[in-house]
């Protein structure tokens, strides 16, 4: 049986998306594999970036541009690699012109080893971009106060990491992530650090609204099948959240009715 999506679209900045999976486009074995992965996963958005045009890069860039257009999936440009507020703002403005979209995945890197976002500058940069008309999806940590302040300056969604980018570790701080989900009501997308479909399913069960991932699919032995696996896991987690999970019990409780058990004698 093919799982059917629930009629509860992901709503970001008033825009409804039919899927709760966002996919990165990097590190795939080939453009053809990326294209197939997008075709089976049907993501809500796909991320893209901007880099210097060189004689060596221009053909790949134009091929990717064609692929983006053919995919029909909305593009979410990122500001990957930016280390200062000015770099982020300029990159976002350039992305808006190139991709013809106000959506921006705000990445402001504070540490090159962990790729941890610079949360001390993030809020101010987000505020500037919001005032310039961008629909900002900020990549952040699971810090409650940072996320709350991002919301205060106008972010209508936030994107806390599960673990550092590309590690595939899954949620390394489940307590903080669950508490964050409880404390904030805006849409939250888990961005970065997921390695397994079960990780995606778990955060969706906790009530996160969507996941954004790249490496876990792109570096799978079979990225196309893994893209489908993540799409199903996201759907399963969302169904479970909507359905409401049972309360965990300390003691065993038989699921089969005891009444009428054959060969049973009261001692």
């Amino acid at each position, binding site marked *: 049986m093919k799982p059917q999506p629930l009629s509860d679209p992901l709503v970001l900045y008033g825009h409804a998306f039919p899927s709760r999976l966002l996919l990165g486009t990097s590190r795939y074995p080939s453009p053809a594999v990326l294209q197939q992965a997008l075709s089976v996963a049907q993501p809500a958005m796909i991320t893209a*970036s901007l*880099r210097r045009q060189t004689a060596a890069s221009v053909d790949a860039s134009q091929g990717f541009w064609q692929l983006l257009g053919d995919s029909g999936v909305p593009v979410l440009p990122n500001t990957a690699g930016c280390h200062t507020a000015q770099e982020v703002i*300029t*990159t976002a403005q350039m992305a808006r012109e190139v991709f013809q979209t106000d959506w921006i995945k705000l990445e402001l890197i504070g540490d090159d080893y962990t790729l941890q976002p610079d949360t001390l500058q993030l809020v101010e940069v987000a505020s500037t971009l919001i005032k310039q008309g961008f629909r900002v999806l900020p990549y952040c940590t699971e810090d409650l106060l940072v996320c709350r302040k991002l919301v205060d300056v106008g972010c209508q969604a936030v994107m806390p990491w599960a673990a550092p980018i*590309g590690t595939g570790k899954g949620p390394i701080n489940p307590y903080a992530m669950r508490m964050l989900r409880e404390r904030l009501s805006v849409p939250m997308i888990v961005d970065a650090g997921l390695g397994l479909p079960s990780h995606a399913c778990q955060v969706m069960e906790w009530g996160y609204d969507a996941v954004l991932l790249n490496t876990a699919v792109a570096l799978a032995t079979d990225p196309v099948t893994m893209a489908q696996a993540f799409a199903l896991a996201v759907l399963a987690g969302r169904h479970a959240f909507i359905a409401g999970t049972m309360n965990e019990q300390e003691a065993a409780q038989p699921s089969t009715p005891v009444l009428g058990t054959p060969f049973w004698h009261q001692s």
Partner: protein
Amino acid sequence: MRTIHIRVNQRAHELSAGCTLEEALASLGFKPPFAVALNLHFVPRDRYADTTLKDQDQIEVISPITGG
């Protein structure tokens, strides 16, 4: 003829003084789609023609690539 020295995507170039951004981009053969920053500030496409370059200007010309 006076010249200016600029850097485009970190590479040095010598151009005629008074050269506009539009002329520089055309002469250097960049292919769309791309966007441009001049000295770390975005320059919209409709401003290329009236942006006159100066000596030591730093230009970034960037194009779409895959990203996460």
